[in-house]
């Protein structure tokens, strides 16, 4: 059987960098294995819906296997909430199907337009990481297609090394054909949100510490333009699932119904001058003023978890050159000081992020290349401009000195040295990789950039 591919220049969600790849799009399980046996000197990489920001989903001049057509539900236990589905299933599809039956994702990243297989490959986290950890904690079993063509099941009991190498393994240990996921029972499709507006960094962090234990979900938006006395001010958003009797009366009899939101599409690239220090300052103070301290705001799950999903292609706002999201985690020890150093360093170089988000992380899942560790995680969005990467390199060294690391799902530019220094379980991962993929058939631009298979 002949397999056709589409030659195309693609990018991650940040639209930087760009890569010409050979796109394959299998529609049957058998076709995935057939594709993987094909001729591609630069190897193959599975890809979900392209929501990783940098080069994690790119494989220049090589094969990229789009998994989106393999998205069927295979088994669901309505008693226990255990779902088995194909790796290409999107989170949006899972929510659409199971939320009306009282089940929600146990952990969700900031977009629902991604596949469950990719969520496993990035071991994604959400606003509940401080309590529940990453999605890996809820993955009961995986069916993995190895480059040899063999399909193997792996879990915490079976092929354990392969399981933990695949969690956060960026799709390089095998193709996730099936995921068995434990869903979470909820009483409604709504979230009760308490907003706390803070005046500076100390207050922001202190509020986190005081309140985090009481709420399953928490996240803080920081005003990154503010300096001096206001430095580190922001808005914290604490959330929990609402019970039906907390909903406004019209919703009480149908607690799982959410009115479909109108989506908007940003149809073109905004010119680069739109995002400048002045417009950033205006946006930040507007957002700050719009969110006073307020308790018990009932909002639907879509608005709370996926505020940006309602603007399709919002990534075009950063202009033609794209943007990078720089996300680090910093251990609690000296965490406050290191956070301040990062924000100050960026400000001193007049490099302002458009969006900055802070949250606390809890225990890691055990994935060998997983990002989370106990500490603060800070995500900053920067439009790509001349001189940006030199500033980010300076931020990287603060992170690696502090014993933290950067999130691979977001990264587009850290050095191989930084990576090797900050992912101490790399050699264990490499041992598994060498076992299941001795010829290095599964490749990516990120793997080559970070020299993932080498010893530095």
């Amino acid at each position, binding site marked *: *059987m002949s397999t*056709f591919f*589409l030659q195309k220049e693609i990018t991650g969600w940040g639209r930087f960098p760009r890569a010409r790849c050979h796109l394959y799009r*299998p*529609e049957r*399980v058998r076709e995935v294995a057939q594709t993987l046996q094909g001729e591609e000197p630069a190897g193959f990489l599975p890809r979900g819906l392209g929501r990783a920001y940098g080069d994690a989903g790119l494989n220049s001049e090589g094969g990229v296997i789009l998994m989106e057509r393999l998205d069927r*539900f295979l*088994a669901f236990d309505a008693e226990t909430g255990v779902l088995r589905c194909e790796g290409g299933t999107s989170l949006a599809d899972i929510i659409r199907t199971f939320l009306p039956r009282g089940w929600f994702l146990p952990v969700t990243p900031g977009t629902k337009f991604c596949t469950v297989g990719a969520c496993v490959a990035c071991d994604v986290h959400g606003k509940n990481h401080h309590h529940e950890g990453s999605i890996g904690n809820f993955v009961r079993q995986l069916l993995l297609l190895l480059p040899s063509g063999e399909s193997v099941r792996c879990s915490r009991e079976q092929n354990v090394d392969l399981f933990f190498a695949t969690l956060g393994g960026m799709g390089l240990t095998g193709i996730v054909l099936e995921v068995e996921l434990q869903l979470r029972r909820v009483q409604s499709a709504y979230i009760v949100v308490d907003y706390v507006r803070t005046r500076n960094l100390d207050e922001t962090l202190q509020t986190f510490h005081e309140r985090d234990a009481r709420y399953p979900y928490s996240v803080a938006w920081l005003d990154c333009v503010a300096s001096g006395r206001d430095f580190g001010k922001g808005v914290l958003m604490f959330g929990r699932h609402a019970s039906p009797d907390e909903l406004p009366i019209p919703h009480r009899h149908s607690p799982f119904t959410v009115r479909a939101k109108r989506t908007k599409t940003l149809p073109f690239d905004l010119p680069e001058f739109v995002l400048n220090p002045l417009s950033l300052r205006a946006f930040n103070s507007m957002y700050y003023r719009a969110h006073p301290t307020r308790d018990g705001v009932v909002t639907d799950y879509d608005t709370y978890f996926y505020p940006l999903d309602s603007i399709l292609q919002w990534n075009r706002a950063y202009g033609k050159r794209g943007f990078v999201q720089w996300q680090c985690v910093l251990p609690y020890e000296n965490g406050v000081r290191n956070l301040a150093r990062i924000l100050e360093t960026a400000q001193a170089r007049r490099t302002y992020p458009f969006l900055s988000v802070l949250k606390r992380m809890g225990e890691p899942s055990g994935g060998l290349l997983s990002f989370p560790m106990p500490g603060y995680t800070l995500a900053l969005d920067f439009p790509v401009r001349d001189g940006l990467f030199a500033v980010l390199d300076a931020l990287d060294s603060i992170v690696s000195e502090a014993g933290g690391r950067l999130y691979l799902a977001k990264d587009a530019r850290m050095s191989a040295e930084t990576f090797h220094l900050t992912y101490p379980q790399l050699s264990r991962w490499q041992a598994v990789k060498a076992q299941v993929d001795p010829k290095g058939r599964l490749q990516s631009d990120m793997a080559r950039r970070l020299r993932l298979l080498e010893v530095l």
Partner: protein
Amino acid sequence: MRHVLLVGATSPLARYMAYEFARLGDTLFLAGRDLEEVERVASDLRIRFGATVYTGRFDAAAIEEHEAFVQNVLRTMGEIEGVVWVAGTMDGLEAAFRQPSALKRLIEVNFTGAASLLTLVAGVLEERGKGFIAGVSSVAGDRGRGQNYPYGSAKGGFSLFLQGLRNRLSRKGVQVTTIKPGFVDTRMTWGRGKLPFLASPQRVARESVQAILKGKDIAYVPAVWWLIMLIIRSIPERVFKKMNL
């Protein structure tokens, strides 16, 4: 609630057509050559819609097995009130221009197998005096083109077969619908260059099932293909033969 047999159930078009029937509460029998894939589509339908779905292996090219297959469907599902033929293949098209064995395979799956099975189901429905038969043919069957006539001629034959069947069964209470999709965004079109009016399988499935339920005779999906094919059919042969299509 109807009992519908869907043949060639593993393609995206068939899967999403099954969604449309399952959403209406219909009971389905899904058949295809790759039973493992058929089972995946079936569990998906059961989980999403709570539908009753049966499955069975079916090989379009193995005509001698078709009678037993129809008997099995009748035994399993109790009855057949409608059949949708979605099976089709373009695999081996390149070889079929030179090798009779590849050409034979294309004709067997796209025409002979289809005609064979629908002949048998037509007998069942004719006896019942009601029901529907829908065949997914192709706009490729509307005019022979140099680039795909091994496939197009089989589909053209299938369109004529459905037309004749419709003519014979129209007085017997059985509706026959010919569905002619244009370019559908599936593996048949993937990586074959930029194609005009490329439609998602979801959309083509939705419009196809609507056409069946409305009792249409011939449905181009999306409808714009009716106009496109009208123009293409009207080009005089002495001009058409010089065009590279």
